[in-house]
């Protein structure tokens, strides 16, 4: 292989065999889903390889890629109508692009010319592995989204759904969520409990973090470890302990009990994020404020608080999500009167597999993404501010 030319055509044995390997991988998945893995691999390897060889020899890139797109689309349509067409077009587009990308040598275009073949291979293999991990993590969520629009009451992709027939889709599970008393009670409880628990977590967590960051506090590490422990102790242990303790003092089965329990779970997140923000806080600012006659409370709210606010808010968001997603502790400490959304989803999933759960899950995923986006934006802002603050 030449080391200088960046876009040189490659020999047939190279691009045909790589295309065959990619085809075999795709064929393996399709073959497995049809019940015959080996046949899938063989056909998957052979067909793209033959097409790659023929297309590159006979046609220029543009018409060849359109031809491959049409060919795969037609083949998919013959096998299983509309969904087949859809999948066929995706495969057709991919393989058309892939074989010419290899054939024309474009795959080296963005890489330094001195890389060896093995390094180039690793460069792309690394990206494929990362992509595969990403797909593995995200697929369960992506499956839930379309299923929540199912017109049937089962977790099943119906033939109508696969054929993109509007009759196979419906918003009825969202309607059920919005009109069903059980779900509405659960939503109301979640929206009542989570903000109160967050407020408590943020107040106590911030105070604890500020206190623990003072150099003269004794047993700093031990106190920190105890405060963080709800994050480390298995949840079921905390929950069982809380159940018997709260029962004895009359807090079991009350809103107050659930709020306190969730606050205890949320405090570690606030302590950790606020402590991290305090590392960048310059204590000479509080001394300057004191020097100018401000009392400690005023100093805290007008000098320190605005500067560590991003840490406080992101800790608060974590505390909120903890309370909003929590199912184990609420099953113990709460009673049916305080059932939250996760409680309702948990019992609902066991007793009645209803796609309403998927509709709720979809809504929660969207909310979680929104909250995490806010956290990320705050983190960037705080980094920017820290960069500007007097060092």
């Amino acid at each position, binding site marked *: 292989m030449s080391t200088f030319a960046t876009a040189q055509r490659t020999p047939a044995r190279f691009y045909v065999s790589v295309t065959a390997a990619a085809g075999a991988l795709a064929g393996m998945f399709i073959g497995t889903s049809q019940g015959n893995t080996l046949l899938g691999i063989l056909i998957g390897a052979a067909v793209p390889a033959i097409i790659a060889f023929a297309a590159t020899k006979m046609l220029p890139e543009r018409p060849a890629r359109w031809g491959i797109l049409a060919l795969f689309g037609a083949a998919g349509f013959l096998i299983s109508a509309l969904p087949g067409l859809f999948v066929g077009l995706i495969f057709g587009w991919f393989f058309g692009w892939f074989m010419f990308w290899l054939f024309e040598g474009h795959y080296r275009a963005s890489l330094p010319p001195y890389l060896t073949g093995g390094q180039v291979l690793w460069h792309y293999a690394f990206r494929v592995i990362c992509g595969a991990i990403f797909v593995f993590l995200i697929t369960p969520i992506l499956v839930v989204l379309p299923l929540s629009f199912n017109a*049937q*009451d*089962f*977790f*099943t992709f119906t033939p109508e759904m696969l054929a993109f027939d509007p009759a196979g889709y419906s918003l009825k599970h969202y309607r059920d969520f919005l009109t069903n008393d*059980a779900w509405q009670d659960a939503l109301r409880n979640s929206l*009542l409990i989570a903000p*109160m628990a967050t*407020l408590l977590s943020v*107040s106590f967590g911030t105070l604890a973090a500020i206190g623990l960051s003072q150099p003269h506090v004794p047993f700093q590490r031990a106190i920190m470890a105890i405060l963080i422990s709800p994050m480390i102790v298995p949840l079921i242990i905390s929950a069982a302990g809380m*159940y*018997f303790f709260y*029962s*004895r003092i*009359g807090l*079991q*089965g*009350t*809103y*107050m009990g659930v*709020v306190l329990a969730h606050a205890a779970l949320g405090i570690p997140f606030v302590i950790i994020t606020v402590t991290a923000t305090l590392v960048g806080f310059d204590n000479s600012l509080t001394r300057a404020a004191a020097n100018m006659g401000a009392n400690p409370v*005023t100093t805290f*709210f*007008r000098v320190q*608080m*605005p500067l560590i*606010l991003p840490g406080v808010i992101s800790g608060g968001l974590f505390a909120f999500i903890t309370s909003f997603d929590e199912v184990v502790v609420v099953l113990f400490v709460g*009673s*049916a*009167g305080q*059932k939250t959304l996760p409680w309702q989803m948990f*019992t*609902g999933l*066991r*007793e*009645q*597999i*209803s796609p309403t759960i998927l509709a709720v899950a979809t809504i929660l995923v969207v909310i979680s993404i929104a909250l995490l986006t806010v956290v990320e934006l705050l983190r960037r802002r705080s980094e920017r501010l820290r960069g500007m603050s007097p060092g």
Partner: protein
Amino acid sequence: MNFKSITALVAASALCAPMAFADGHMANEMTIVSWGGAYSKSQQRAYHDPYSEMTGTKIINDDSSAEAVSKLRAMNEAGNVTWDVVDVVAADALRLCDEGLAMEIDPDTQLADAPDGTKASEDFGDMLVGDCFIPQIVYSTTFGYRTDLVGDTPPTSVCDVFDTEKYPGKRSLEKRPIANVEWALICDGVAYEEVYDLLATEAGQERAMAKLDTIKDDVIWWSAGADTPQLLADGEVIMGSTYNGRLFSVIEEQKQPVAMLWDWQMFDLDGWIIPTGLSPERQARAMDYIMFATDTQRLADQAKYISYGPARKSSAPLVGKHADLGIEMAPHMPTDPKNSVNTFLYNYEFWADYRDDIDAKWQAWLSK
């Protein structure tokens, strides 16, 4: 955010908190524990709604019947019973009664008579098992099959479940020995009268497991009542056992290509218990609810919403049409003569004695 607005926020939330957290337990409300899903919905419409309207009592539903025994034990230990009325299967009721976790109820003085004056004990008859259990419905564990996946000759006998040559494909069975071992022996040629005598012996238990061994690779085990309907709807199994009411819902409400196989259905009872350790006021309210919810008309009303048979003899003639679908409910009842040619009745005595033993062998067999 400045100092003032934060102070205002804290003050406001401190003021709101006591209002939001006012404890509900003293008010006129009760927590009723049941199974969730369509079953709870039928109770809601037949019992809870009319009772709330009549008395103004607010009813909170807790779908925790599946872990009723362990939760009641924990509540008792913590001295804080938060449930007022609990719906359990008869076997669980017997256990709770033995452990003193459910209170004893005298049917003749504490339950309503039939409209014609028949005493409750006579009206319920054999259904009254144990001293604490007030029966509500008769349900059965039975099979459903996919009409489009079993070929031209649909299964007619429970033994077709064991015939993987005639009906190739997966089948779903409950992940516990009860019902499965009885079916296995029947299909291994044992006469109905001898099933429990044989199951009481080591050899009989082994024979049942050996029969189940022949289909073990083709079985998907379920533990929640909703599993088999989902598996049937997916076409993942061609036949499977579950509660007959779930199959009714799959067939008549969800319009899935599924049909019933009633052969050798396993009858069981489900009903109410009242936990011990309630305050006199709560106990009186719970008794009042039970009196209302188990009278002849109310039991017949429940059959309008779900295909389970009422436990009172006097309710049977009052069973009418489904409230939403408008179809006659009688032919869908497990107790209908056409459906109950061959039946088992859950053998409470036998399983109370042998359950631990056979459960252990079952677990060992499953993990083999």
